[in-house]
């Protein structure tokens, strides 16, 4: 399961994020790499892009714990809503619910991380300029600790 799949699946479990990105998993507006055409007209959207993946080394071999630099682009026609959605993602990533480094995150009950394991590197405001009027965007840059499951 890719990290993006894990992020999207776990994010959908959060009511605070469903309030922004939709209540149907199939159309949950958190996208892998590319905005689905027509989605911005429906509501707030988030695009997840892997910027880089750092693998370290242990004596037996490559460390299965990856440090994945991940970018979240959050778009909404209202800049305040985009900022609120970014804050909701940030709040969630700062909890043990956003656990991408331990197996069992999708079991019932889910296994939580002992503490926050995702590190915010940067946040910046931007614009998506191509539409009729530019769309405000908040970009979150995170280092996410992840183990493949």
């Amino acid at each position, binding site marked *: 399961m890719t990290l993006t799949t894990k992020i999207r699946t776990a994010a959908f479990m959060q009511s605070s994020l469903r309030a922004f990105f939709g209540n149907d998993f199939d159309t949950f507006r958190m996208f892998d*790499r*590319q*905005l689905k*055409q*027509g989605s*911005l*007209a429906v509501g707030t959207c988030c*695009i997840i*892009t892997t910027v880089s993946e750092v693998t370290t080394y242990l004596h037996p071999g490559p460390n299965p714990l990856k440090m994945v630099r991940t970018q979240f*682009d959050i778009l909404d*026609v*209202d*800049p*305040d809503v985009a900022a609120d959605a970014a804050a909701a993602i940030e709040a969630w990533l700062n909890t043990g619910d956003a656990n991408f480094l331990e197996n069992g995150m999708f079991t019932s009950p889910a296994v939580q991380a002992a503490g926050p394991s995702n590190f915010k590197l940067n946040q910046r405001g931007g614009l*998506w300029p*191509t*539409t*009729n*009027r530019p769309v*405000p965007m908040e970009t979150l840059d995170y280092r996410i600790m992840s183990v493949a499951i």
Partner: protein
Amino acid sequence: MDQNLIRKAILGVMPIVRDSGLLISFATFKVPPDLTAGGFVRDNYVDVPGLIDIACMASPLGTGSGFSASETKAQEEQQANQEFHIVLDDFYPAVNDVWRSAGCVVVDGLTLDVTGVEHPSQNQYTRVRAQNVTI
């Protein structure tokens, strides 16, 4: 040659266009009036007095290839773009200000971004370049 004949001929063009029945659409121009508390342009566009329900004809913008609607695929989006050439029934100099104020035009219910305004020096009509872009 009697130059006045040309001038009179020019004056006769738009009445013929108006009588032809070609101008079946209506255009209303809008501008964003204010900002959000954070300073971003608010999207509650308001009608511009004097530029409401203007008779017009909106055609696909001529490109030479015969098809101006297009799609551009990028890494993070797929952009659908449709461009129009709108002829208004008369000379409306204020439309130029709309264009230069981040305004838009609504033609038969479709909201378009105004991307250009022209009128020839005879001031008989106004033409507007507008586009609808979605991602």
